[in-house]
């Protein structure tokens, strides 16, 4: 066994020498309170504002962050060692100089490129990106790199994560059922898009609090209000009233901490002991949210999803959809009457028989017809269904748990035709359009990857699919509109092709398996075969053929006859060429006339009660005990004004939240720009100026340098709250371009590096670790947006769910390689790698991630299926790209750190790989794979200088 090399003691010794002062403080950091009382005093932060004798109790002096924001005066400052690039640099350097601190020298170019890429996009630069930067000798290359990365859509992905940590974004409710929050992913995408579009921060805040209350709103304004509904929600609370107020509390608490840096939670039950926030202030603020419809209206385990989830047309109904529909209806009925008139004429003059004869070819191969008018001998079971008005005469009327079964008539080539009508959306929502998630039309679903098939209504869409492999296709929205719709599902066994036709038009096709679809013994009509999800509506004229219908046959069924070539021939023979051409033209037009669709999306969004509640103090935080009535207003520490509320003209809400948003984003609010400035600083420089970013109050920490924070905050305001401009300002500074070089003297003066005398190196975040592994081996899928994906979850983790088989989905390998931000966030089942590397807690706002170092992280990176597989892919890539072992090793080391290794290092690693081969009898590929896995565990991979 090889022990640590001879150089190691030197490191340890040096570390002791240089770090004693720091460690004296921080070894105490996770010791329980008892052991720490003694050291607490000595660790007291800088003294607060000195209370004025006499009047301090009645009127405490305002805290620094509640005083108006004023641009500080800029000191004259000079440096012989670094370029002064901005006023921020001036204030920073002035402070360092006044403390006798010397800034570290500039960082190396490669360190800077790596640092900038991670800071802006959360991803490592590619070798090409590094090379092209190094080859560029123009003076503004840094600015151009900054601009290019700010334009990169991966910027939004990385910075959205910072925001999502604050708003406790997750896609489920927690508790027993841990239900999906429909459309939560759209909020995530909206945040990404907002960062990428550089939405001004005031607008960003306003849209989340009150997008629905703004004039000229778009669908995005509604999606943004999903912010209000991201928290945990007990579906079965012991005290439903309290639970509703817990939900409001979550909204208020998140708003105050995230946007104002106020921790207000204490004041829910008692006057805040730290900041002067009385309970009354808390409830005045809570009233801004009390107009929202509650997530629960009663007991039981239901959640009133209609109170915060709805389906909205993307254009919010502005385009004249009804007129388009009317136009379509008119034309369709004109063409249909043309067809009917011609056929009626034939019928009247030559009798019904000739028409039937012309249509007889259509019935070739028809194995089963269920007209639902009279006895249906084919039905093997009929549970509770009834008959009523159908598409033709009587039809099948279904409600509750009705179900009918028939023996499956087809398995190879087939066509299934049916009519249905409902005004209720099918199961499964509108995002995951897989037939087996829906409500039954004609279904043969059998669990697992088997030879099955079915037609269902999923949300607002007709969906069809075949199993093994699982292939799903779907039609347009708008199917649950109370009108009859005609559906044909065809399947051609030899090619595997499946086609879906809606109302005579071919709308989708796909390529499925080519085997007999013989898994279900029976098919279920109007309900899913596993005995759930009955259509609440009508079905009629269900037909099965053992062949694939063609376009004219499908149209003929959809328009009740007249579209077949035989009809045209009949008309030509009997009525002449001119009439035949008229029929042909009408039929062609009917085939082309698809109903106008309107794009609709399901959104998680704010909805208010018609009459907003009157606010009350809730005594000692108990929701059911009402105290004094309160009106919406602002906390005393920030002026204590009453809110001016103007209800929006659409009459859909109270305007309260808009009043709150206007106050938060008002230029006079001293906190808002300081809070966001502090956060941007935190994510660029590793630590914030106020290190308690969610609490600027008395219980929070004081800024390391208020002038620096205030200057940056005023700069952000001056740039109309452009986040990109703010970030650009920071990464363009000399502060950002320093190295992290250690200096004993500076370390003595400022051991925590609070004043940034050197750059702060950091470990990659959980998401960055996973994304970088995928980026390095080239398998990262950089596409943006859409519902969450499901990378493989270890069976050990799945076994912890109360329904182990149903807890997690399955994504394609391409989707499984998406960036970590797009992994579905299920509160009770989190991704083990992200969890190991300190992902944000999902249940409360997370202002700063923990930065732990634990053996479980080592186990994850060494032993997990994920890193093992990714190391293999990296080794395979290297084997393809490079011919010699030393080049392969050189390239891997370069890819993980962007630093080209020197010859000695390559040699040392070649020797290691060779020793794997000789000592452990590994072949070349195996040894290279082990090396790649080792590389993912190197500190230079997981740390940024």
């Amino acid at each position, binding site marked *: 066994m090889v022990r640590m090399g001879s150089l190691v003691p030197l490191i340890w010794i040096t570390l002791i020498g240089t770090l004693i002062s720091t460690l004296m403080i921080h070894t105490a950091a996770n010791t329980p*309170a008892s052991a720490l009382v003694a050291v607490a005093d000595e660790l007291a932060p800088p003294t607060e504002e000195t209370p004025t004798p006499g009047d301090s109790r009645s009127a405490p002096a305002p805290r620094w962050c509640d005083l108006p924001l004023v641009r500080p005066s800029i000191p004259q400052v000079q440096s012989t060692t670094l370029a002064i690039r901005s006023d921020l640099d001036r204030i920073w350097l002035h402070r360092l100089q006044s403390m006798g601190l010397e800034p570290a020298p500039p960082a190396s170019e490669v360190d800077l490129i790596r640092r900038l890429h991670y800071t802006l996009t959360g991803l490592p630069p590619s070798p090409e990106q590094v090379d092209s930067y190094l080859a560029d000798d123009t003076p503004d290359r840094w600015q151009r790199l900054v601009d290019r990365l700010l334009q990169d859509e991966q910027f939004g992905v990385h910075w959205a994560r910072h925001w999502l940590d604050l708003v406790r974004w997750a896609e489920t409710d927690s508790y027993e059922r841990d239900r999906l929050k429909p459309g939560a992913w759209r909020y995530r995408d909206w945040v990404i898009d907002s960062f990428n579009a550089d939405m001004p921060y005031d607008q960003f805040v306003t849209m989340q609090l009150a997008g629905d209350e703004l004039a000229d709103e778009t669908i995005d304004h509604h999606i943004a209000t999903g912010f209000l509904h991201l928290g945990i929600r*007990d579906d079965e609370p012991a005290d439903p009233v309290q639970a509703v107020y817990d939900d409001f509390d979550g909204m208020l608490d998140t708003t105050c901490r995230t946007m104002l840096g106020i921790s207000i939670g204490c004041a829910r039950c*008692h006057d805040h002991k730290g900041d002067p926030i009385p309970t009354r202030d808390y409830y005045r603020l809570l009233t801004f949210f009390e107009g929202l419809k509650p997530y629960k209206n009663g007991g039981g385990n239901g959640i009133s999803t209609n109170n915060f989830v709805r389906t909205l047309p993307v254009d919010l109904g502005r385009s004249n959809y009804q007129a388009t529909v009317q136009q379509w209806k008119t034309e369709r009925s004109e063409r249909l009457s043309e067809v009917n008139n011609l056929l009626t004429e034939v019928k009247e003059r030559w009798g019904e028989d000739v028409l039937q004869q012309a249509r007889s070819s259509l019935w070739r191969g028809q194995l089963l017809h269920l007209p639902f008018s009279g006895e249906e001998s084919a039905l093997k079971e009929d549970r509770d269904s009834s008959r009523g008005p159908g598409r033709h005469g009587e039809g099948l009327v279904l409600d509750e748990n009705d179900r009918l079964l028939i023996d499956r008539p087809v398995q190879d080539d087939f066509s299934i035709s049916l009519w249905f009508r409902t005004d209720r959306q099918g199961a499964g929502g509108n995002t995951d359009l897989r037939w087996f998630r829906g409500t039954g039309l004609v279904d043969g679903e059998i669990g697992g990857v088997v030879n099955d098939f079915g037609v269902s209504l999923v949300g607002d869409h007709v969906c069809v699919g075949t199993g093994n492999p699982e292939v799903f296709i779907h039609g347009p929205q708008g199917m649950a509109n109370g009108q009859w719709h005609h559906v044909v599902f065809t399947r051609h066994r030899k090619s595997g092709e499946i086609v879906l036709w809606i109302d005579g038009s071919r709308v989708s096709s796909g390529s499925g398996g080519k085997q007999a679809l013989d898994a279900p013994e029976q098919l279920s009509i109007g309900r899913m075969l596993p005995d759930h999800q009955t259509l609440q509506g009508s079905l009629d004229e269900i037909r099965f053929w053992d062949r694939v219908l063609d376009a004219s046959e499908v149209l003929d069924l959809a328009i009740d006859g007249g579209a077949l070539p035989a009809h045209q021939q009949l008309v030509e023979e009997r009525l002449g060429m001119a009439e035949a051409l008229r029929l042909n033209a009408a039929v062609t037009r009917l085939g082309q006339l698809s109903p106008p669709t309107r794009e609709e999306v399901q959104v998680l969004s704010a909805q208010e009660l018609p009459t907003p509640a009157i606010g009350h103090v809730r005594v000692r935080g108990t929701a059911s005990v009402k105290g004094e009535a309160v009106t919406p207003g602002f906390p005393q520490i920030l002026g204590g004004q009453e809110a001016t509320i103007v209800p929006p003209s659409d009459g859909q809400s109270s305007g309260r939240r808009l009043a709150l948003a206007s106050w938060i984003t008002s230029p006079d609010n001293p906190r808002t720009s300081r809070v966001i400035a502090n956060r941007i600083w935190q994510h660029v420089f590793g630590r914030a100026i106020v290190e308690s970013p969610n609490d600027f109050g008395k219980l929070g920490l004081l800024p390391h340098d208020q002038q620096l924070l205030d200057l940056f905050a005023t700069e952000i305001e001056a740039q109309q709250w452009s986040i990109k401009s703010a970030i650009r300002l920071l990464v363009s500074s000399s502060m950002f371009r320093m190295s992290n070089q250690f200096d004993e003297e500076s370390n003595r003066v400022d051991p925590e590096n609070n004043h940034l005398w050197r750059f702060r190196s950091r470990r990659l975040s959980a998401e960055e670790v996973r994304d970088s592994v995928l980026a390095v081996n080239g398998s990262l899928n950089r596409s943006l947006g859409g519902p969450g994906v499901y990378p493989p979850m270890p069976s050990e983790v799945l076994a912890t769910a109360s329904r182990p088989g149903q807890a997690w989905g399955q994504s394609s390998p391409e989707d499984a390689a998406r960036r970590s931000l797009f992994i579905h966030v299920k509160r009770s089942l989190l991704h083990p790698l992200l969890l190991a590397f300190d992902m944000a807690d999902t249940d409360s706002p*997370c202002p700063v991630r923990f930065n732990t*170092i634990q053996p479980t992280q080592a186990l994850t990176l060494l032993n997990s299926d994920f890193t093992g597989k990714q190391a293999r892919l990296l080794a395979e890539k290297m084997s393809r790209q490079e011919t010699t072992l030393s080049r392969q090793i050189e390239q891997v080391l370069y890819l993980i750190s962007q630093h080209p290794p020197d010859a000695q290092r390559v040699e040392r690693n070649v020797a290691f790989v060779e020793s794997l081969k000789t000592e452990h009898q590994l072949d070349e590929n195996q040894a290279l794979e082990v090396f790649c896995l080792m590389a993912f565990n190197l500190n230079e991979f997981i740390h940024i200088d």
Partner: protein
Amino acid sequence: MTDQPQGKGQFCGRTRREFLWESGAGFASLALGGLLGNGFFAGQSLAADGLTQFKSPLTPLPAMLAARAKSVIFLFMYGGPSHMDTFDYKPALYPLDGKTIDVTTFGRGGHRKQGRVVGPKWNFKQYGECGKYVSDLFPNVGSMVDDITFLHSMTADSPLHGSAMLMMNSGKLLSGSPCLGSWVNYGLGTLNENLPGFVVMLDQTGGPISGAKNWSSGYMPGQYQGTVLRSEDPPILDLQPPPALGGGIQRSVLDHLRAENAEHAIERLGNPDLSARIASYELAYQMQSSAPEAVDLAKEDEETHSLYGIDQAKTQDFGKKCLMARRLVERGVRFVQIYSGGNHNDNNWDAHGDLKLNHDKHAGATDLPIAGLLKDLKRRGMLDETLVIWGGEFGRQPTAEYSEGTGRDHNAYGFTMWMAGGGTKGGTSIGQTDELGSAAVESPLQVKNLHATALHLMGLDPNRLTYFHAGLDRKLVGFEDEQPIWNAIS
């Protein structure tokens, strides 16, 4: 900033230390401080020799009070066992079987004022010197009653699984708070750095509802969350090297990795995270051998296997877990939680339909193993320093849930839990429910009293063990001071 020791009245006081947590332990040196603990400097002489003794992130910490127990084994009867059919003898209930009576209940079926009594389905008899009545469901546990302290007047804030589970595990109805096991490890650290300090073993049918929320460290860092341990290989996720690293390859990799990382660290003075990370790989390596050894039941003799019921199909699974728990606490694991029951409905103690079928199954699978665990701990002299807790998230109602059948609905108004060892009295019963078992009437106890008792016995002051989060000094027992169950303590 408070300048007094924390405690009464200091709702929002906190120390600077806690701010380091609040600010995400963002200081570079914190991780090292945490990782290497107070032994860091002492360890350096060894490191200079190239034989570094690596310290755990859960380095043992001095207790606040004189500790009675070193470890807790929490036998979680998920779903809610019926107290009047197990340990809370209600003779008056038998003759009422089938009669409709006035009784206030609150369960899954909501609030009710009346119900049809389901008489207890098992007979009770007296055991031990204390003469405690125990039902025929638990004859083996019955034989240990002189070591058991029964808490008959437990109450919980919710009669619904989702929130009641969180309540029993984390003291809060809302998800997002650390569990009892997290608090114990936060307060005390571990006695064995090569094993996780908070271990959870789940039922074969799956986790309890809300899954990992039941062993989450909530707002505390991840090192305090429970580690799921399985009775089959590998016991812990990612513990076993993959085939590609088998046969000593991993050791070669680790040696090389350490050399490479050391080289990298040389040029980066003043970055203790880098050294801490080097150390963490050695800890991981040690865990790989320690954890499988700790749960290797082949090391135990036949008599012991039989004591735990491992030789019988019915009791094998739970017996194995109980024996593993003993081996774990023997090796210094602070908190072990074993779930009896998982998944939904009759896969756990949630007997809504057929009480007889359900409880025969779950008691049958656990009675012998639990008694075996108590006996084994006792004969090894370990019971004194191991607190064993038995119970579910609530109990069950004296009346039927449906118009037919024997199923009982949930009952948080009164139910039974018990404790043994770890400084508890034994042979004692505390509190009473009414004669129907519908609600606690004498000395009602809350979940926070149970938690306070566990912390107290472990040497932690439940009213001073705090963690600053989101503007509040959080405690496991809530904002107010809470008392341990003093008369349960010997």
